[in-house]
């Protein structure tokens, strides 16, 4: 069976803090271009899962592969991130916030460009600001932006590095419902345009259904009332959902059956 290679694979992954087992028996495969939304009760390990992908938590057992290679256990440019808060730099203007990625790349020592090179970086930043609809605010500081605009900025920052996967950690949780709708539209638009692979943690089941191509539910399958940390969560549901065309739906189904064979 010749299908597209998996971009991300989790094989028998387990995560524990000492005796506290958070995640167990995580097996999954994700292909390029999928949009995974992750829901679950608080403390179910969905954020821990995202942190493992991001590289700020490392798994205690099993294998995590990104493009067939073991995932690097610190953050790197191949994985972009948007947190709920604090993911933009307050001391830089909007365009500097995006251009800084170019400065890190082109000026290894100081991380700062001057003259024409700086102008080029800022111009490229402007392109991304346009993509997220933030160009009119390019010379403002983050504290002058609304919550939704700050999240747009955080997305633009992440995109300029062309990450293999985009990780969203409850990115719209603190936004007003109206603004959240706009952000949904934006994320779907960017996801299609740049063929991104997206992982998104959310509280909001509706959001998960609306945005994703696959919805994962994290929960415990076994429970010991005398030792609540004895068993960890796992992915209990893996549902193809959302605005998918038939072809990608088929692919998802195929990967689902594959997963069952492995498990």
């Amino acid at each position: 069976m010749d299908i597209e290679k998996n971009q991300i694979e989790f094989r028998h992954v387990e995560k524990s803090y000492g005796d506290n087992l958070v995640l167990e028996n995580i097996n999954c495969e994700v292909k390029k271009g999928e949009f995974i939304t992750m829901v679950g009760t608080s403390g179910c390990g969905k954020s821990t899962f995202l942190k493992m992908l991001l590289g700020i938590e490392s798994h205690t057992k099993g294998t995590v592969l990104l493009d067939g290679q073991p995932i690097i256990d610190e953050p790197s440019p191949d994985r972009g991130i948007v947190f709920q808060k604090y993911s933009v730099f307050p001391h830089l203007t909007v365009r500097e916030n995006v251009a800084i990625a170019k400065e890190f790349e082109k000026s290894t020592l100081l991380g700062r460009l001057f003259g024409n090179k700086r102008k080029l970086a800022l111009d490229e930043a402007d392109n991304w600001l346009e993509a997220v609809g933030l160009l009119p605010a390019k010379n403002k500081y983050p504290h002058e932006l609304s919550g939704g605009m700050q999240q747009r900025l955080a997305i633009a920052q992440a995109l300029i590095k062309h990450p293999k996967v985009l990780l969203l950690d409850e990115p719209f949780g603190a936004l007003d419902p109206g603004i959240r709708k706009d952000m949904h539209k934006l994320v779907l638009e960017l996801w299609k345009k740049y063929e991104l692979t997206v992982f998104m943690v959310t509280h909001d089941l509706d959001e998960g259904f609306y945005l994703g191509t696959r919805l994962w539910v994290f929960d415990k399958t076994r429970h010991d009332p005398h030792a609540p940390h004895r068993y960890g969560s796992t992915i209990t549901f893996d549902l193809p959902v959302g605005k998918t065309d038939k072809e990608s739906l088929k692919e998802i189904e195929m990967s689902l059956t594959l997963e069952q064979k492995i498990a």
Partner: protein
Amino acid sequence: MKRWINIKPSKPLAIALGIIPFFLLMILYQVGSESRKAENPQDKLLPSVSQFQSAIDRLAFNPSKRTGEFVFWQDTASSLKRLLTGVACAAFIGLILGLITGAIPLIGANLNPVITAISLIPPMAVLPLLFIVFGLGELSKVMLIIIGITPFLIRDLYQRTKDIPQEQLVKAQTLGANSFQLIIRVLLPQVLPRLMDALRLSLGTAWLFLIAAEAIAATDGLGYRIFLVRRYLSMDIILPYVAWITFLAFVLDWLLVKTSKKIFPWYHAAK
């Protein structure tokens, strides 16, 4: 009637309320001075306003007969030079060490215990040591200020560095920053305004150590003068000097706030 905690003064009322205690203090002084003078015209403890004026005039606007210098300004210049040199050095060391111990856990683990230990030494206790090691010149006075406030600055800036949200550090790494780039482009610019805050807090302590050092070994300076004329009970000089030091402290604080607001608008707006 509203509860006391809910009654807020209007702006003019707030200003008036703020001025009243100053007035009361001045009147209290005036009354005390006059009543003592009535009993003993030679009283030196609470000089009259005219005595202050003549003392200020003598020291600030007439050259000293002995050296030809304007003593008041000479004292001010010497003290400010020592204070600012000490504070600048302390700020520099505090910034660098606070930043790297906060940013790099290995260096933090290496240096934090020794910094904590040093910060517990009462600086005045090592003053004799400073005089022995650095001599009685300018260096030992500047060193006392440095030793007095640097540990506080390091520890404060260490904490301020740690307080910068982890999310930003992760974000910078996903944008490709290496450790050094992250320190100078993300942490340093955000710690600088916090350094200004820490300096404001440590200026009072810096003055304390400056005056202490000048009191013990100096040939000029505001602290030196106060402790010199104390022998003659010259309150007509001591009190204006104290007021002048207070004013200088106020101006320095004000300058730090203004400068910080000017260079770091994003910091003050976000607070």
